[in-house]
């Protein structure tokens, strides 16, 4: 029983570590196709460094997970949380505080945004 509990604890501790080690891989396979490896986007896809415009805004935390590309990515909650912690820090220069957890991401991604660009405008205008 003790050994089983210990194994369970070890696995639980190892899971986020594994998700963290896969962030770049997950980014390339699930984001970079459209946003490109350096995040610069194209004439039809938003550039990720523009995430800076929303940095520090209390609404941004929810918004970034509810963007359809993130919410509907074929990734587990733990891996999406790790990916978004890495991605927000990479493109805004500041890591989310507190860091996203699998539970929080799992809750937020259930409601993907229908019109992310309109929502972004609203957040920027403070409404």
């Amino acid at each position, binding site marked *: 029983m003790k050994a089983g509990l210990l194994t369970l604890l070890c696995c639980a501790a190892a899971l986020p570590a594994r998700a963290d080690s896969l962030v770049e891989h997950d980014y*390339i396979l699930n984001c970079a196709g459209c946003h490109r490896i350096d995040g610069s986007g194209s004439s039809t896809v938003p550039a990720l460094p523009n995430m800076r415009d929303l940095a520090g805004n209390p609404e941004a935390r929810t918004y970034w997970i509810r963007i359809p590309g993130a919410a509907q990515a074929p990734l587990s909650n733990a891996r999406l949380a790790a990916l978004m912690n890495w991605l927000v820090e990479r493109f805004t220069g500041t890591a989310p505080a507190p860091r996203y957890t699998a539970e929080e991401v799992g809750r937020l991604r259930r409601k993907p945004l229908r019109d992310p660009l309109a929502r972004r405008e609203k957040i920027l205008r403070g409404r």
Partner: protein
Amino acid sequence: MSRLDRWFEGMTRQSARRLSRRHWLSRFGGVLVGGAALPLLPVARAADENMVGADGVRGREGDPARCEYWRHCAIDGFLCSCCGGSHLACPPGTEMSPVTWIGTCRNPADGKDYIISYNDCCGRTFCGRCMCNRNEGERPLYHWYRNNDLNWCSGTKSQTYSCSTAVLVKVADEAQPEK
């Protein structure tokens, strides 16, 4: 000069006396048919299989102009290698799309999985040569950014699809699909 003429005349007459016309025809026919049949021999095919191609991979899996090339495991389209370009570069007159569909393929030379970016070349009408449709690890259309059935000619001047490349991005930490 007359000595050369005489020599040739002698040779010709001698061969005409010794060899029948049919004899010559049969030999010549044998060379023609034999030469054409040579690549069909198992020896020739074995040589093809053992040829070391791109990325140090043997046989068809190492040939960027074939669907069996290892990087083409998730491709759906015409190979730029057959259309005046290569598996890394677009044919003249086309532009590489910055927006692309990305998958992973296993390199048989080292057994590792690699991330492959299938950038489309756009701007001329579709090439029509070397159509390949392997789709390993492709997602359904509702995961459109992991699907290859749609036109990835986006962010380019022209949306006309011509052919596809297979650019190696880096070693994959995990083969698709993700766990």
